[in-house]
């Protein structure tokens, strides 16, 4: 019977006729049993030697005071989807992702197989693979071992594929800073392959010396593999399920500062348990770096290295150190090159939250004055003195409000229209406001603007200046409360995000929405163009990844014609380069992010670029102007809507005259 299965591949059909079980390795001598026990102990000790240290560093880190183990349902779901189903791993890189998932699933499947395997060495027969009797052996011997075999095949193929990719195809994001290949990954891959191969082989051989030898081979692979796990990036095997389960719960969640001594991530003593856990979970897959706009345009920032820098710091100095985090292990310059686009955090398959880390490091530098930057200083002083990021006189905003005859919010209107710095002061931002106002009037929505409005504090927040941010947030909250504002609508995703999420630390903000959401609700009342214009919509980071709004702006952009998509769009959208306060920080190193993204948009062949953020708008306007005369038109969705209304009007007049 065993011989027959030996000849045929273990197909599902084969289970039915012949149960598939690993070959009986026979009996083990006392010496063998002792040796086995010693080896197991050795392996576990070696495992613990490293894992114990890591665990200690995690547990000895500062507790995260703002962390609450709430939303258990969502946590369970995330765990199921991201850990069990490997959804992120697969979604972001389908082929290698699937390969990884097969390895992972095989590991799950092997949990029982392995237990049984080791038990055999001590003469135990847990799953009844030897003395097949009763339901246990039916369930396991006749189905489970075969199923595990299928996983083993998939896993072996996958790991071989991954090996080839890492060592022969060599995508850049897997590279290490020293450009060396990670040989430990090779060894691990070899071990996994050997584990699978020995198991599969044991399904074919009959009992006897071969089986005995295979048993030992499998066991030794296992015992070598185990201690390697904590010593290599495969530590994520153990940690990442926890990382994902214990996430902060929302995207780019910047924790409040606690007490008088907390200035953000200044030194090791500021690293919280969550951050340390995350630092040790990184699997060095480089997904974050692959999508990082800064890294892609020649900046030194590399989000993977930011995480690994923390890990090295923890390895060398531990979580109680007073040594600054920025310096040897992480570069201040790099940290301040981040646009806070969130692509890294969004991509990371093991649940690492880069933004709280990067913004945390910036807070540590800015709140203590360690960050010295001419443009940054100018920005903060402008925010303090003029209460807007551009350092313009508030009278300029008044003039615009008067000229446009914008009503002042007095409580009788439904919406408070938030102008924001760009809407209030930038000539192009003002055009967006004017168009949006036209549309609102067309739709009969009532709105008013605040007499006095300060910057929401977004650039201060992202650059880690909690002092300025708090002052602005509190002043704005008070003004809104005084006017009894219930609903805010804004043309700027940065304003929306900051009002809704970041202000919460200081009070209860009114309901706020982005104008794309408002416009999408009224989509039916807006005239559709039947031109054959090709429109590409650029997802602003703070609308897409930060707010999960993708379809609403598209529904408005499509008023102008038919939509085409850029190669990187929706969740994978590429930043315009303005976020994180970078629009105010002077020249970039390397290529400009905005130019890179503008080229991606132009490459779609679209005749109109739809934008939904005044910062994206200013970045692209500049980039497109530099790229030549016949570049596509750049319009905010509000301008698209307003243009449609205008275009439809003569027709309506004509129609009513007839």
């Amino acid at each position: 019977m065993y011989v027959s299965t030996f000849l045929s591949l273990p197909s599902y059909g084969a289970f039915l006729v012949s149960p598939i079980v690993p070959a009986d390795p026979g009996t083990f001598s006392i010496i063998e049993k002792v040796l086995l026990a010693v080896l197991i102990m050795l392996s576990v000790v070696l495992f613990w030697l490293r894992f114990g240290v890591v665990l200690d560093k995690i547990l000895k880190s500062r507790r995260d005071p703002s962390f609450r183990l709430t939303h258990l349902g969502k946590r369970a779901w995330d765990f199921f989807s991201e850990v069990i189903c490997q959804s992120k791993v697969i979604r972001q890189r389908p082929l290698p992702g699937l390969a990884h998932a097969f390895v992972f699933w095989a590991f799950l499947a092997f949990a029982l197989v392995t237990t049984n395997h080791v038990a055999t060495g001590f003469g135990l027969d847990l799953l009844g693979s030897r003395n097949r009797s009763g339901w246990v052996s039916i369930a396991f011997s006749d189905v489970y071992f075969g199923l595990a075999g299928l996983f083993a095949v998939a896993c072996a193929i996958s790991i071989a594929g991954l090996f080839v990719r890492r060592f022969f195809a060599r995508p850049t994001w897997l590279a290490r800073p020293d450009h060396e290949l990670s040989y430990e990954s090779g060894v691990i891959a070899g071990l996994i392959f050997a584990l699978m191969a020995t198991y599969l082989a044991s399904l074919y051989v009959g009992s006897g010396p071969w089986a005995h030898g295979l048993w030992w081979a499998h066991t030794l692979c296992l015992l070598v593999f185990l201690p390697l796990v904590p010593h290599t990036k495969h530590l994520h095997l153990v940690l990442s399920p926890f990382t994902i389960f214990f996430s902060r719960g929302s995207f780019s969640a910047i924790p409040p500062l606690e007490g008088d001594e907390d200035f953000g991530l200044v030194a090791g003593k500021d690293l919280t348990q969550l951050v340390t856990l995350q630092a040790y979970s990184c699997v060095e897959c480089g997904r974050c770096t692959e999508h990082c706009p800064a890294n892609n345009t020649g900046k030194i920032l590399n989000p993977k290295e930011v995480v690994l820098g923390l890990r090295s710091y923890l390895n060398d100095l531990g979580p109680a150190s007073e040594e600054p985090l920025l310096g040897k292990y992480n570069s201040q310059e790099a940290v301040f090159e981040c646009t806070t686009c969130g692509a890294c955090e969004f991509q990371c398959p093991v649940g690492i939250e880069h933004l709280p880390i990067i913004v945390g490091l910036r807070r540590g530098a800015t709140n203590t004055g360690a960050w010295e930057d001419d443009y940054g200083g100018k920005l903060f002083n402008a925010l303090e003195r003029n209460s807007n990021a551009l350092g313009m006189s508030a009278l300029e905003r008044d003039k615009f409000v008067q000229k446009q005859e914008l009503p002042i919010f007095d409580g009788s209107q439904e919406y408070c229209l938030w102008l924001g710095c760009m809407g209030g002061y930038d000539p192009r931002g003002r055009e967006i406001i004017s168009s949006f106002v036209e549309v609102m009037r067309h739709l009969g929505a009532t709105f008013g603007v605040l007499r006095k409005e300060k910057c929401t504090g977004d650039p201060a927040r992202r650059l880690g200046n909690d002092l300025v941010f708090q002052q602005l947030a509190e002043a704005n909250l008070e003004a809104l409360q005084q006017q009894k504002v219930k609903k805010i609508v804004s043309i700027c995703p940065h304003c929306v995000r900051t009002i809704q999420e970041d202000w919460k630390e200081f009070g209860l903000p009114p309901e706020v929405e982005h104008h794309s959401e408002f416009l999408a609700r009224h989509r039916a009342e807006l005239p559709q163009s039947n031109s054959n214009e090709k429109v590409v919509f650029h997802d602003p980071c703070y609308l897409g990844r930060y707010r999960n709004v993708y379809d609403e702006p598209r529904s408005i952009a499509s008023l102008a014609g038919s939509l085409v998509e850029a190669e990187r769009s929706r969740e994978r959208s590429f930043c315009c380069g303005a976020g994180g306060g970078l629009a105010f920080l002077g020249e970039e190193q390397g290529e400009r992010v905005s130019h890179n993204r503008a080229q991606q948009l132009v490459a779609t062949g679209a005749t109109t670029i739809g934008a939904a953020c005044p910062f994206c708008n200013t970045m692209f306007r500049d980039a497109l102007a530099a790229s030549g005369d016949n570049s596509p038109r750049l319009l905010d969705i509000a301008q698209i809507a307003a243009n449609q209304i205008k275009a439809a009007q003569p027709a309506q007049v004509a129609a009513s005259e007839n």
Partner: protein
Amino acid sequence: MKIIVAIKQVPERDARIRIDSGNKWIDLEDVEFSMNESDAYALEEALQLKEAHGGEVIVVSAGPERAGKTIREALAKGADRAIHLQSSDETELAAYDALGVARLLAASIQDEKADLVLTGLQSDDLGLGQTGVILAELLGLPHASLILKIEVAGNGLKVLRELEDGWFQHIELATPAVLTIQSGNTKLRYATLMGIKKAKTKEVRVIAVADLVASDPSLKPTAPSVVLDQVKLPHKQRSTQLLGGSPAEAAAALVEKLQFEVRVI
């Protein structure tokens, strides 16, 4: 080096201007205040000197209670302690002219025996541009005004003074001395959260103007020599004047404006 910096809290540069009912000043309701710009540069110079040569930076400010915010800002940026010459309300100090206020300031800092007194070049609100120079005279110290850079040279200082039309000059003087600082030559540091927290524990000595005057009757504002009678809004609002005609005509019109209105030719 012990450095005193005189700072003033003034209405925000872009404050909405409405004249108050007495026609003597603007309505301060709704107005926000900030540190006078050139004073901020004076403070920055002082902090840089302290960082380079050690010592102490003391800020002094005359003004009502609200000026405390600006004082705390200065402490947050790195000043070591402060003297707040506090007026009981918005009008108490209005009874003094520039000389009167300078006398109060001089009286409040005399005992400090500072090596250097810095002030801003002029205040953004009254724009008199005199307090520093008057202080020098009252304290019997040499002074230099419109200073862009301060270097310690031997026992004294070598300072860079701005002259008109892009000219400069070095001036050497011994300490103690008074310097009035011109804006714009250095980058201002920003206030930090850590600075604000540290500032909470720093000393602010509050001296009530009335108490100071009571201790020295010669400071009393019996008869200021210069009296403000009333304020008015100027008629002219800034707006764009388009110059038309042929290029030559427009150019000629522009040159005339540059000559007689902007006065740069």
